[in-house]
């Protein structure tokens, strides 16, 4: 199948107008590195499709910091995310994830919004965004709303966002200097570059004011199910817990116990389950080292 029309849009307003006018026969595309391949490979013969490319809309591009948040335009490319000093210092796990997505050629074109809306369970920016507690700004002709990124997944490849009606415009990532926070992502794959992960784990930690205890943490692992998976019991185990090797190891073991990954070409179910524990532990060590914090025995 092929698309009939491909329009490079200049504004959100115009895009929403077009979506409404085409009433289901148009859909939003950003970098298109996944979508254009999918459309060409699909055999479905539907009505002629119009693609509205939002990747050059300035108002949804770029990274800024304001009032305790990072704002990331959904049309920001993966390369821009990976190379951004702001992201590298304040949302480090996201920079780590972005750096390992696809190839340089893909990263130069693919966008962070597209990566999330494509809704693959182990997408390299979705995992850290969820760990970081990011929210997505979704606009439609009915208005705009903020939704936790975590709530955007309905199934493997199925997003809560309807690309024939809605636009994911921006991400909002909470950041702060105090209390101290850190994040890290560990990604295991068969090769160092240009390959999908066998397993990824992203963690985010917030320490108490004395920096002896975790205040709260988030642990996200994937692919462990059809949608990104949070190790909630492991997170609970570290709530207000002392920052010690034993506590982190115990939480990692709980994450392993609760994870039920499946067998695929990229890894066995048992292997993936074991790796949940190891990557979780490594991600904590890496994240805390960023804060010059070592784990006490």
């Amino acid at each position, binding site marked *: 199948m092929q*698309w*009939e029309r*491909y329009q*490079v849009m200049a504004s959100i307003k115009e895009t929403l107008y077009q979506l409404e006018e085409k009433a289901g026969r148009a859909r939003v595309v950003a970098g*298109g590195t996944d979508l*254009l391949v999918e459309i060409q490979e699909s055999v479905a013969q539907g009505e002629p499709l119009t693609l509205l490319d939002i990747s050059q809309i300035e108002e949804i591009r770029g990274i800024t910091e304001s009032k305790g948040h990072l704002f990331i335009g959904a049309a920001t490319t993966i390369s821009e995310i990976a190379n951004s000093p702001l992201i590298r210092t304040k949302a480090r796990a996201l920079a780590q994830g972005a750096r390992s997505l*696809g190839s340089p050629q*893909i990263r130069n074109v693919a966008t962070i919004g597209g990566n999330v809306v494509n809704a693959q369970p182990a997408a390299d920016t979705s995992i850290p965004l969820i760990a970081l507690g990011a929210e997505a700004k979704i606009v439609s002709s009915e208005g705009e709303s903020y939704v936790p990124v975590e709530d955007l997944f309905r199934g493997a490849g199925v997003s809560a966002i309807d690309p024939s009606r809605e636009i994911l415009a921006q991400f909002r990532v909470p950041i702060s200097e105090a209390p101290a926070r850190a994040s890290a992502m560990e990604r295991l794959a068969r090769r160092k570059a*240009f390959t999908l992960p066998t397993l990824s784990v992203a963690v985010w930690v917030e320490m108490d004011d004395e920096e002896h205890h975790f205040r709260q943490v988030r642990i996200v692992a994937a692919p462990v199910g059809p949608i990104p998976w949070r190790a909630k019991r492991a997170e609970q185990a570290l709530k207000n817990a002392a920052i010690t090797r034993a506590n982190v190891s115990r939480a990692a073991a709980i994450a392993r116990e609760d994870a039920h990954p499946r067998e695929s070409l990229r890894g066995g179910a048992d292997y993936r389950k074991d790796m949940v524990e190891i990557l979780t532990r490594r991600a904590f060590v890496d994240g805390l080292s960023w804060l010059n914090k070592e784990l006490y025995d």
Partner: protein
Amino acid sequence: MTERSITFTLNGFKQTVRVPENLLLLDLLREDLGLTGTKRGCGVGECSACTVLVNGHPVASCIYPAVKVDGRTVMTVEGLARTQKDLHPLQTWFLKLGAVQCGFCIPGILLSAKALLDRNPSPTAEEVREAIAGNLCRCAGYQKIVEAVLAAADELRGESLPSRKETGGEGALGRSMLKLDGIPKVMGTAQFAADLKRPGMLFGAMVWSPYPHARIIAIDTDPALSAEGVAAVLTAKDIPGPNSYGTIVKDQSFLAAQKVRYVGDPVAVVIAKEENVARLAAEKVRVNYEVLPPLFDPREAMKPEASRIHDRGNILIHSKIRKGNIEEGFRQADVIVEKSFTTQTVEHAYMEPEAALAFWDGEMLVVHCCSQGPHYHRQEIARMVNLPVSKVRVIQATTGGGFGGKIDLSLQHFVALGTFVTGKPVKMVWTREESFRTSTKRHAFYLNYRVGATRQGRLTAAYAEIIGNTGAYASFGPAVITRSATMALGPYDCPNVHVDAYGIYTNTQISGAMRGFGAPQMSPCHEPIVDEIARQCGLSPVEMRRINILRPGSSTVTQQILTAGVGALETLEKIATEMK
């Protein structure tokens, strides 16, 4: 299709072109603007042979809509140098340091490297590797490419290059030579088969079997023939000569007439005025099949009661080696090790998918194609169209990798038949998926070994059973299987050997020639066995090999007495020294 006018800067010159909104940048460059230096290796952004720079950034042009370059600048490999005299330092160093082999990935890699050096004039080797991580190469190896990029960076910074001077020697001997067809390859002007064009040329598309094993009841070509723009639909009935071919055993039909034996067995060829017209019409050819139970496992297919894939049975070849007295050998053994192994099917995955162009030059039928065996292809084409060999010319186009996978016929004969029937030039280019689906593979093996040795570590007996999945047709199967049998013990000397190697037909992709030709499957088997015997004898792995390795005077498994030129022991000693 809705069209739009776009204006962009291409290799320094402003261009305004009208493009359909569904046109991809790669097709705009290659088909409309004739810049064929940019290559299509996969069509889905996975290989980056199609890399061009948009506003200085490498992108995969095969998944990049052409309308997106409106107002931007695009650079292709043709923009690196206008003539041979003004090659970019990247191009000259790729040539000097031997970074160019088949050349298919090179335009994309040069551009990835260009983008890197533009933003970072002094990259580390690691940064070069990161920059070219998306560009797949299958032959030259990345190391020389990395060295060439670093050398070009040095030159661009105006630094002297003492360590990278050409190695010199007297006359031609001992001196690095520039690759004969290297310059066109770094300039993007080398003509691969997909880059060729002829006026009035038609395009071919294949109709493949969707079943692994089925009988053809009827083929209805009418719905395809009646489609606008279709010139011919060729089936077995259109073949003037005998409908059989094969390099060793002629067990394969040019186009299946009675039976299909794997998913991808060619059934018909649609010839039309445009490629997409041919592809759409190919979907309209109706083939009525009686589906037969398939056999996928050679261990099942070789059983006497198994259903027959070919009339003469499922055992293509049984290659036997008998040396000495195997029973006696095992009686002498103090240690006996038994192990079973499996090896997998491997795809060559050359960067260039198959492509060919045929036309009449007077009464000479000419075929330009990617090929590793133009003489063999010529024989088979002449036989197929019933022309004397002297009336068929096969010209090897610049070939983007082969590794054994382009020795067999792939599509050369289909374009030849298309031209023979229509009188017009016919071109065909396969997608990566078609290439994967239909090209030959490395044989997958099931192996059972039993090897005995004395307590001192001297091998006394070796038994091996090798069951190779040769797929639906013979291809080079008999030769590969026989080679495996002769390589069953690798570089080791054993007085008593018994090998049974089988090539078994199954309803899977055809296995054929691939680098090493049956030998690479053997080393992961005999080496761990030698290690295990060493452990049980209390010997070091090196000592165990020293005792048994072939040397001048040794008798191989086929009882050839080796005389000179046996380098195995020398190799072993060098490895042993390196490992200390």
